[in-house]
């Protein structure tokens, strides 16, 4: 019954949203709602997931993403924009669909997610991003106590995070668990904090249940450790990453 009401309401509101022509985004019930089902397999997401992506065909479509996430996919070490290179296509497609559907709130990203509407193009771009090597000069925990933070973080990570995110931060492609290796420390910390506090409304309830008990300083240590992870065979060569390649 409630679902029908929500549907009717969203249908009634749809024209208003369309005519606005831009943000703010539509909002869909997420983790705050009782009826929330994580990673519901429906809509355009399924379509893009089923289609085969070709990295070569996705390169051009990625150009618009590169303005913020950089051509290398590295994002910004200050964590404003996440590192994307090497991320699983499943994760990329899910996050794009969630942002577009108003399930993950991100006003800056929203209009871009809204532009990329073609499922085949989405599949191509995602496979292009996945094919990129993971830059190694990302943002890490910087502080005199970095060593201790990483050791403390490792202990916690190996206790509860490792089962899903794996020993080197590889995640699990089929399960939509993201790659963490090479991600910026500040981005990791912000996402974990937001997932714990219910602000990332497309979060996995299983993760929320686990992360709930960690305080801020523990999340700092876990992020510090995650940002130190490295996936053998997937990382860019250090020499290529440190070369001042972009001088305009």
């Amino acid at each position, binding site marked *: 019954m409630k679902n029908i009401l929500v549907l009717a309401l969203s249908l009634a509101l749809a024209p208003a949203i369309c005519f606005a022509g831009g*943000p*703010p985004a539509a909002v869909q019930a997420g983790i705050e709602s009782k009826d929330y089902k994580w990673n519901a397999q429906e809509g355009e997401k399924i379509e893009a997931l089923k289609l085969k992506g070709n990295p070569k065909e996705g390169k051009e479509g990625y150009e618009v993403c590169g*303005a913020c996430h950089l051509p290398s996919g590295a994002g*910004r070490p200050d964590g*404003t924009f996440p590192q994307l290179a090497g991320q699983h296509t499943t994760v990329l497609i899910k996050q794009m669909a969630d942002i577009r559907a108003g399930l993950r709130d991100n*006003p800056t990203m929203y*209009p871009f997610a*809204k*532009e990329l509407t073609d499922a085949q193009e989405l599949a191509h771009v995602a496979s292009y991003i996945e094919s990129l090597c993971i830059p190694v000069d990302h943002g890490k925990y910087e502080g005199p106590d970095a060593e201790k933070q990483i050791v403390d973080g490792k202990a916690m990570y190996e206790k509860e995070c490792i089962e899903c995110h794996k020993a080197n931060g590889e995640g699990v492609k089929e399960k939509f668990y993201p790659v963490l290796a090479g991600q910026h420390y500040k981005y990791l910390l912000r996402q974990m904090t937001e997932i714990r506090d219910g602000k990332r409304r497309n979060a996995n309830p299983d993760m929320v249940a686990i992360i709930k008990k960690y305080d801020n300083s523990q999340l700092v240590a876990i992020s510090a450790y995650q940002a130190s992870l490295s996936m053998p065979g997937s990382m860019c060569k250090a020499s290529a990453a440190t070369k001042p390649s972009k001088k305009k």
Partner: protein
Amino acid sequence: MNTKMFFVAALVALTSNVAKADGATLYAEKTCIACHGKEGKKPLTAAYPKIAGQNAAYLEQQMLDIQSGARANGSSAAMKGVMHLVSATEIKELAQYLSKLK
């Protein structure tokens, strides 16, 4: 006295030099280009403004207001997410650069 004057002059020259080179570079590096398009002429959506040739004083004030949160209407939430990337000096430089585009 003379040395002090020299340092002040050198500092002014240095900062203005750095700032001068930066307009177009800042526009790309601070991700303005992602939404407002090449040279501020091709916004991503019709909801975003063309900013090439806009008055520098107006541009500067809008950027400062969106950064501080004083302006929070329209699509400004999308821009607020990147405004921590620029300083007041860089905002001034961007405003100058954009105002001179035709």
